[in-house]
């Protein structure tokens, strides 16, 4: 090994490394990745698969998103379990009677519409995601024939953004409706939870929309296909999770109060 290396040499090496998509995911064998090389006995069990094959970066980012969503799930589970406890916890009032002052919040009817919108947006998001992985278009891009993937995906992505904004507006209207009936965040125990749950979920969707817009611009800007795929794929999984999560939260607010 050379004792010293001139900086510009290192720079070249670095660029070379980046080009062949080696981004630190383990020391790659010089040989063909598909064949064994597990050391003793060449048995397939000895090989740590994980990073093999194409889409290595994509899969890594996907896994990251999934773990983030897992911890987010715990966040909402904590809130929901709080909901169950507070819902059924009464107290001994001044007359030594056991009372439970839980007044269920009647959910505005528009929530049903919002739910439908959100589900629809999940569908469009899935279409957008699928577009990113069409073999033919990937091949075209690889051959350098324009950016057909971006061209096909943009409309779906745009629709999703629009629907997402629509959903947030719908939630806003729902809050206004409740406020009109003088049901506010601090009104009673169940209104706490209505505003808290819808609010926290809305914040999540807000960030989701921000990410969607980032992906949208990324589709224009980024030249590297895998980067664009990662963007759309990541946002898609996040968006799906938020959609499914909303189904549960909505069911909770609608039927389990």
């Amino acid at each position, binding site marked *: 090994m050379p004792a010293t290396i001139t900086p510009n040499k290192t720079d070249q090496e670095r660029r070379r490394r980046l080009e062949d998509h080696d981004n630190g995911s383990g020391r790659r064998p010089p040989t063909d990745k598909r064949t064994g090389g597990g050391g003793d006995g060449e048995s397939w069990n000895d090989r740590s698969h994980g990073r093999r094959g194409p889409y290595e970066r994509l899969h890594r980012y996907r896994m990251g998103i999934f773990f983030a969503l897992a911890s987010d*799930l715990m966040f909402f589970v*904590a809130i929901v*379990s709080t909901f169950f*406890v507070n819902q*059924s*916890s*009464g107290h001994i009032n001044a007359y030594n009677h*056991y009372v439970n002052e839980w007044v269920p919040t009647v959910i505005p009817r528009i929530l049903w519409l919002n739910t439908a919108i959100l589900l629809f947006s999940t569908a469009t998001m899935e279409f957008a995601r699928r577009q990113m992985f069409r073999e033919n278009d990937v091949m075209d891009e690889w051959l350098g024939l324009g950016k057909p993937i971006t061209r096909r995906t943009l409309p779906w992505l745009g629709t999703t953004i629009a629907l997402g904004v629509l959903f947030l507006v719908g939630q806003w209207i729902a809050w206004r409706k409740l406020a009109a009936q003088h049901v506010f965040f601090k009104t009673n125990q169940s209104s706490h939870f209505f505003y808290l749950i819808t609010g926290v979920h809305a914040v999540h969707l807000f960030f989701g929309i921000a990410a969607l817009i980032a992906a949208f611009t990324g589709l224009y800007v980024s030249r590297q296909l895998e980067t664009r795929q990662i963007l759309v794929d990541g946002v898609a999984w996040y968006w799906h999770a938020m959609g499914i999560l909303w189904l549960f939260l909505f069911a909770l607010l609608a039927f389990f109060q």
Partner: protein
Amino acid sequence: MKRSAIYKVVFSATVAFALLLVPLPLHAQGCTQCLDNTAATAPATQRAYRRAIVILTLTATGLFATTLFVFKRHR
């Protein structure tokens, strides 16, 4: 042979988890006298707490086990 580790984990963990949950349903309704003598909480509230505890633990342990499974697939 190599898998035994993960199976041992999952198995013994499930046993421990069952061990934890056994006394809960066992006393689900029981002992109205305890009602005011222990926590002065209505059975409804106790049920709610129990449900909350189970939800939390089930989700958490589920995530734990799932991750191990994912890891196993990437062994």
